[in-house]
């Protein structure tokens, strides 16, 4: 069977990439039309979600990024054989071509905004509401303010990206998770904007990672889970 790491733009069809796949297996290419899948062959494969396996998959995709437009494939994807894979590539060639154009020359940056709850206790309410209720209301107001702030930070960063996606999280600490598709040449400016936002808004924490291959933008928005 074939384990699939990534799809790359196949004009011209790339040679088998350097480097190893899972278990040291050599990488190979199955190309149809203008789409090539980078794979490795295995008699059988089990792929527990462990750091080493995840990084192996990731590094294959990253090395390809230096030369090609790359669409990372979801971890753990296997296909029975070359014919089955070729049929999938044929069937969705237009979709993949569109995605190549979207991610070409761009990388993904991730930003999570975490709430840093206020250190000080809120003032007691003057109107006789109980201290517990006042505390909860104060905390709720602070979190709501932080949520609005997270969205405005996101809007500022999105303006520097070719495309962005975000989700608001209903967890106490994590306010917002966002991904930005950024032109390679703009990454430095984007990171400066993140640092600037972090300096100006100590009431939230920003976790920024990247650059990544365009995992989040590999599919059209409507197809994401």
């Amino acid at each position, binding site marked *: 069977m074939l384990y699939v790491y990534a799809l790359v733009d196949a004009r011209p069809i790339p040679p088998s990439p350097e480097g190893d796949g899972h278990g040291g297996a050599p990488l190979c290419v199955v190309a149809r039309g203008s789409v090539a899948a980078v794979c490795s062959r295995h008699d059988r494969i089990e792929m527990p*979600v462990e750091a080493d396996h*995840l990084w192996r998959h990731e590094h294959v995709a990253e090395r390809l990024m230096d030369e090609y437009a790359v669409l990372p494939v979801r971890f753990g*994807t296997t296909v029975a054989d070359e014919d089955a894979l070729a049929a*999938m590539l044929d069937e969705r060639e237009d979709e993949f071509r569109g995605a190549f154009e979207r991610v070409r020359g761009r990388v993904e940056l991730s930003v999570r905004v975490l709430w*840093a709850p206020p250190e000080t206790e809120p003032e007691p309410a003057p109107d006789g509401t109980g201290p517990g209720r006042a505390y909860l209301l104060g905390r709720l107001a602070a979190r709501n303010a932080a949520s609005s702030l997270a969205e405005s930070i996101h809007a500022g960063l999105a303006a520097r990206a070719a495309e962005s996606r975000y989700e608001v999280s209903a967890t106490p600490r994590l306010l917002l998770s966002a991904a930005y598709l950024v032109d390679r040449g703009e990454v430095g400016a984007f990171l400066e904007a993140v640092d600037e936002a972090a300096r100006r808004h100590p009431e939230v924490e920003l976790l920024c990672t990247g650059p*990544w291959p365009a995992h989040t933008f590999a599919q059209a928005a409507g197809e994401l889970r």
Partner: protein
Amino acid sequence: MTTSRALGPSSMATSEVTLVELIDRLVGKGVVLHGDITLAVADVDLIYVGLRALISSVSNLERDE
């Protein structure tokens, strides 16, 4: 080979944050080919529980410094 990726003010616990982001991307994003995904749905759910826990612990770690 694993490069350090967490950037900006929260460079503490960099490798943990980076691994969380990697898991999130590799198992939750990317092109879905209609082949076989070797992960069970239950595994993926567990990963997301772990992801939330880790994000929250990373952030607590930083606050405790």
